[in-house]
């Protein structure tokens, strides 16, 4: 039963992190190239435009949810299971979500990269 709780918490972490990453990536694409914008309009404009973007604020909220569910999960489950499982599943989830929602062209090269990194992270932290 404890395993069910732990894995549910891991899934919540992964879901919240993927939602957060996708929203933040989308928000920053809406803001535009930060370097070019800073040269043109200054740093204050960059910060104002970023903080004023609703997707950015939702993304940060989702990241906060992910962080607090990680804290909860760590109090139930083993850190050697929760941390690597959440991190590596987030890599795979992000690749799928980026393809569907951000319309990134996730070609074979990027699938292989995401899978290798996910496996590597699982081994490193395990």
């Amino acid at each position, binding site marked *: 039963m404890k395993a069910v709780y732990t894995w549910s918490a891991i899934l919540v972490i992964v879901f919240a992190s993927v939602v957060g990453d996708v929203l933040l990536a989308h928000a920053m694409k809406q803001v535009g190239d930060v370097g070019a914008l800073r040269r043109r309009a200054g740093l204050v404009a960059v910060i104002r435009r970023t903080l004023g973007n609703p997707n950015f604020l939702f993304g940060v909220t989702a990241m906060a949810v992910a962080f607090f569910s990680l804290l909860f999960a760590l109090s139930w489950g083993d850190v050697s299971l929760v941390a690597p499982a959440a991190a590596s599943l987030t890599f795979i989830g992000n690749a799928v979500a980026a393809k569907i929602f951000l319309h990134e062209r996730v070609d074979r090269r990027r699938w292989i990269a995401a899978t290798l990194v996910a496996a*590597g992270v699982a081994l*490193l932290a395990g």
Partner: protein
Amino acid sequence: MNIRKYLVLAGVTVFAAAGDSMLSHGMKQTGSISLNHLQGVIFAILNPWVGVGILLLLAFFATYMTALSWADLTYVLPATSLGYVLLALVARFLLHEHVSPLRWLGIALITGGVGFVAGGPALTEHHHAKPVGEPCGVATSPPCDSAQGMLLAKDARNGAPSGVDV
């Protein structure tokens, strides 16, 4: 991708790894915090290691957002996962901790993954809100970059909106 952008990606990697290490080091000094003794949080922030760690993680967030403003999520995430490798190398050579063969295998896999993604283009999607100094994504102008042009043509064939401001 110019040298400045590679520096930003390096910044994401280094700030995340250094920030996490410093937070972890500082939190081990301050001891555990429980919900019953929340004032412990204030002592934790006063610890210089924790303070510097938080500053580094803020720097990480700023560089991460900068990278996402001109590169794909599926490019930035693998490219900056070298931070895990960095942490393991610091543990092995600076802290003289034991790194097991399985972990070395993990380091090799991550490095391989980074090599795979780094060989490809940094940006593939085309939903730009405001293409800054980048006329390639605009539907009314002819595609100036061949790779981007091919991509737009391919998406147009697939019926996807190409070069449309969202």
